[in-house]
């Protein structure tokens, strides 16, 4: 788990750095040399998806996702913990389903040999979706067993 955390955090830093680098390079080369990497824009947009999924994975570590919290203020802690476990269980179920169906999508694209940009196959770009969903699913299952403290909002 600690190993996974290090990978997530490291990748986020590298991806954001890479994204800034390529985006600025695109701008400079377009403005001054009338050129730019022909795959640069597509690359940056895939980065956004990866950053989104990785960020969401990190947020799932301690259940930091945006939620609508309507009722917990009026209930005792004991009740809230039970409700929180239920919410985590259902969230894990949804994520499990999504991991499976996004894996199907990735597999189809792999079989069809679809190219995203340059010679990078689309399935590699898409693979972050089932992977992230699976990891988040696991994390929410752990939250069922041990609910994390929710930050005061």
């Amino acid at each position: 788990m600690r190993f996974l955390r290090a990978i997530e955090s490291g990748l986020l830093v590298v991806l954001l750095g890479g994204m800034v680098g390529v985006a600025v390079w695109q701008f400079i080369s377009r403005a001054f040399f009338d050129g730019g990497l022909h795959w640069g824009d597509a690359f940056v947009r895939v980065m956004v998806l990866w950053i989104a999924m990785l960020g969401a994975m990190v947020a799932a570590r301690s259940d930091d996702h945006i939620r609508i919290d309507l009722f917990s203020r009026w209930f005792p802690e004991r009740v809230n913990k039970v409700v929180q476990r239920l919410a985590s269980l259902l969230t894990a179920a949804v994520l499990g389903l999504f991991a499976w169906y996004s894996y199907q999508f990735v597999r189809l694209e792999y079989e069809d040999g679809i190219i995203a940009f340059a010679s990078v196959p689309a399935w590699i770009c898409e693979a972050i979706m089932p992977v992230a969903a699976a990891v988040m699913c696991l994390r929410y299952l752990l939250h069922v067993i041990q609910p994390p403290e929710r930050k005061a909002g």
Partner: protein
Amino acid sequence: MTLLFILLVVVMVLAGAPLFAVIMAAAMTGFHAAEIDLSVVAIELYRIVDTPLLVALPLFTFSGYVLSAARTSQRLVDLVQALVGGMPAGLALVGFVACALFTALTGASGVTIVAIGALLLPALMSQGYGEKFSLGLVTSSGSLGLLIFPSVPLILYGVIAQQMDVGVPFAIVDLFKAGILPVLLMLSLLIAYTLWKYRGGGLQRQPFSMVELKRALWAARYELPLPLVVLGGVFSGLFAISEAAAVTAVYVTIAEVLLYRDVPLKALPQLIIDSMVMVGGILLILGVALGFTNYLIDVQIPQQLFDFMQGYVESPLMFLLLLNVLLLVLGAILDIFAAIVIMVPLLLPVAVGYGINPVHLGIIFLANMQIGYFTPPIGMNLFIASYRFRKSMVELYSACGPYFLVLLVAVLLITYVPWLSMVFVQ
């Protein structure tokens, strides 16, 4: 079966499950009922990749986090104070303007309350402003900047509205142009209220000092070019929004890490992770909502909603009034990003049906959300201020009340006078 799934979605909402999971579950339920393979949810999520504008979101958010970690808030307050502090009710004006600019830059009104409010509250009280007045000022001004470029909620509205393709095309820059007069209107009304409140005098005036202004300008020397470069670049069409975001990220990092040395290089990775966790949360919701929206459009929910509403609400004015009430309530209970992602796809087609321009709707939407932030009893900024300034919620309700009324007048004017939003938009 479908009924069971719908029930489970409702349970998830009530139990406070993460919003992305709720929307994902709702989308899956819908597609399942329509006998569409659920892979479609992944295909829709992957559409994030087809939206160039979204590149701006992580970049601006990262810049905002760096600016918040640096002493930018102090320099901003000093500079605005040196500029307008000498005017009547000058320090209150400083508060409004500094909060608005800081929120626009960082995209987070809670951060503004903590960063700027904490600087301003003691200063305001030492110049003779009442405690209640000052507390209300820093709490309610936290969300003032939502309509100013490069506010992230405004960009998010633009992304979703453009995806919807409702037949009235507009550019993101139009949204930024449209926000100018509404923001000035809010500031004017707030200042008018302050002057009226302290019409009998009792406030200290800080005389204008050229020395102070030069000192403040010098202190902000590395940050001052930033808004000029970015605003100038975007409005003149030299930069696309996403390019402006990349330039901003690089510029801010160089300024705060290398030139000011406010933020140590070692702190940068953690800032990246923190900001990207927030971005990830927002984008995941957006991604699954794109799928859900498509389902809604497939089964013509917005169209049905419009037909249904037309049976009861004939005039656009009546519709706008209902819209204001709805958005005020939503603004108080929903996170702003969640509100945009959930409500815009439903409201936009209906609003366009009533002849309201998407750009105008965006301004109305965000102006409402802005006051929703401090609408009693559960506006989010009330909690943040209560926590930060150690005041009870009841004290905050009464402190923010007058500001709520003043800004409500502004929101109503913005809603019913489209000219305010549309005058600079072709």
